[in-house]
């Protein structure tokens, strides 16, 4: 008999080069491969969905139009009329994260949003963009953002550092939230699946029968993970909108 099965929950997040020797020579990882697949899937949905240009949309066209109006409404409701300018950015961000999360749920696929390097890069992009927008809209008045309106001036030495730290914590919380949710979901899957193997190896037939319980939990987790994949992409996008709202309107 081979070595007894153990729970190896973290090896699924290990990077490896893909596409054989070509990928190895340029360090093209499995994470990059799924990113390309994500971009291709989004482009395919929009291209093939909108090709009929029917007045009464078919299923695929209805899906593409729903995607468009969902993000357009989010931008307009949260940022205001200026939100139209940032629609392309929020749309790209939302669907990159959503499709990345969803593709990561498939067996043998890699969830690139489970790497904090990826989520931190996305969050920093949002952070830098929101500062850039605030400075172009308001110039130096942007720095009044760090002093709450109506507070006594004597408290400025305490309030200003707190506001600055609170501002700086935005990209941190944005990246940690997405990364932690995806990692937690995938680890739970692996733990319960490994539990099934251990039960079967330890107790034979009885263990095989008992492993239906972890299997049932994993089935429930699939549904939960689908929800998390959508919800985290939504939270990322709407927080981006909120930060852009703050940048456009200050206070």
């Amino acid at each position, binding site marked *: 008999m081979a070595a007894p099965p153990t729970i190896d929950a973290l090896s699924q997040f290990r990077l490896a080069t893909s596409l054989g020797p070509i990928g190895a020579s340029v360090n093209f990882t499995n994470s990059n491969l799924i990113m390309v697949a994500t971009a291709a899937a989004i482009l395919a949905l929009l291209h093939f969905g909108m090709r009929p240009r029917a007045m009464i949309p078919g299923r695929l066209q209805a899906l593409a139009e729903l995607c468009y109006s969902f993000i357009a409404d989010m931008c307009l409701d949260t940022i205001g009329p200026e939100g*139209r300018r940032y629609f392309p950015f929020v749309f790209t961000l939302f669907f990159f994260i959503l499709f990345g999360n969803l593709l990561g749920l498939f067996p043998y696929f890699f969830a690139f949003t489970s790497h904090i390097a990826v989520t931190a890069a996305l969050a920093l992009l949002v952070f830098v963009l929101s500062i850039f927008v605030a400075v172009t809209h308001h110039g130096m008045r942007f720095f009044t953002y760090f002093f709450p309106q109506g507070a006594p001036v004597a408290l400025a030495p305490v309030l200003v550092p707190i506001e600055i730290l*609170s501002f700086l*914590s935005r990209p941190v919380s944005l990246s940690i939230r997405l990364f932690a949710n995806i990692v937690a979901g995938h680890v739970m899957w692996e733990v319960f699946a490994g539990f099934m193997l251990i039960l079967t190896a330890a107790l034979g037939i009885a263990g095989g029968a008992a492993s239906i319980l972890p299997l049932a939990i994993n089935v429930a987790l699939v549904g939960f993970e689908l929800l998390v994949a959508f919800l985290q992409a939504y*939270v990322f996008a709407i927080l981006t909108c909120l930060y852009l709202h703050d940048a456009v309107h200050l206070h």
Partner: protein
Amino acid sequence: MSDPPGGKDVSFEERLRAARSRQGLEGTQPAKGRSDPFAGSPWAIGLRVGVELVAALMVGVAIGWLLDRWLGTRPVFLGIFVLLGGAAGIRNVWRLFAP
């Protein structure tokens, strides 16, 4: 070729402005305000509050530690910025739930 709406004599600038105002790009109507992204289950709210608190604290610890390493004053700035980071975390949570 069909004429654009408004006829040929309307200048490009005017048509551009009309199109932009029709699309709301130059509108003056105010924003509907922030929609609430934190409506959800108590679990989700709790998780988000926790992330906000920890993130601000992490930023505070990082800044304090780096300042101390730079100035060689451990643990003065670490202590100050842990307190400020905790306060910033509370501020983040307050901002989530403030009307």
